[in-house]
């Protein structure tokens, strides 16, 4: 199962079959582009809050704007209340697992790790309305690098 398969499965469920059916009747699923970055070399996301409507196809691009420090970061969206547990599971996954618990249903979307000067992207279907935490799952970073995706009703 690929990471995308996992995300499609995890994200479609909370959205609801009725809403999906409505979208299907109307045609193409609405799309939203979101951009987020590191705060330079600091252990912080910038901005720390993102917003999108439920059910849309989100194209998220994450820029690592660090200049000095060779440290990897990723952007991982989790179900509410699971950020700490996902960070622990990422640590257990280790370097071999790219510091991401791949089959973990608490992970709703995740970019690959990227280094300074690079950017990575992920597409996912926005879940049901609510506030979803996002973190960097590189060991130790989640304590500092976290934010909220506000999902609003469509």
């Amino acid at each position, binding site marked *: 199962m690929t990471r995308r398969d996992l995300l499609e499965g995890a994200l479609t469920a909370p959205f609801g079959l009725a809403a999906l059916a409505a979208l299907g009747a109307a045609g193409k699923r609405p799309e939203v582009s979101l951009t987020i970055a590191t705060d*330079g*070399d*600091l*252990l*912080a*996301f910038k901005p*720390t*809050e993102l917003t999108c409507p439920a059910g849309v196809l989100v194209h998220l691009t994450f820029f690592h704007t660090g*200049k*000095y*420090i*060779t*440290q990897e970061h990723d952007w991982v969206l989790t179900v*509410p*209340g*699971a*950020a*700490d*547990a996902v960070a622990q599971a990422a640590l257990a996954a280790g370097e071999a697992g790219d510091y991401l618990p791949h089959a973990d249903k608490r992970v709703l979307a995740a970019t690959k790790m990227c280094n300074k000067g690079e950017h990575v992207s992920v597409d996912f279907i926005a879940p049901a309305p609510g*506030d979803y*935490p996002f973190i960097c799952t590189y*060991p*130790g*970073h*989640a*304590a*500092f690098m*976290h*934010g*909220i995706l506000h999902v609003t009703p469509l």
Partner: protein
Amino acid sequence: MATSTSTARIALLLAGSLTLLAAQGAAAAEPRSPEQVHTALRILASVYADMESKLPDQQFDRLPHENMEFHEGAGAMRDAMQDEPADYQAKVLAALDKAVNASQNVADTSKTHDTAKVRAALDALAADMRALNGLFPEELRAEPGSVPAPQHKRPPPSH
């Protein structure tokens, strides 16, 4: 007699205060690139926070990696000093090198897996970082370990 003694004391106190103020002013000189200096100090403070966070779970084996980041982060301060007068630059870089050596000591000490020794090495690093901070005006300083928490409109569901 009493009056002249009091006057002498006041004069001494005034002279002392003025000397102290002058010394502080010289020590905390305004750099030519304050934003760069502030960013560099924040980067080092942030790496220190990451180092310190490894202690509760005794992740000693991660500390050499954080030390490498500290060495790289020091590059931000070296860049910030490029256009400074030679004597000021030398003073800052000497303090920076001292902090970098203290960071190396944290990495070396981490191999002992002795929490108390690593804690002491971290405290020594913090002291050297504070000395480095002391060379700049207060508004540019960044306390070791200080990483401003993200300002969410609502508290995150966890953390």
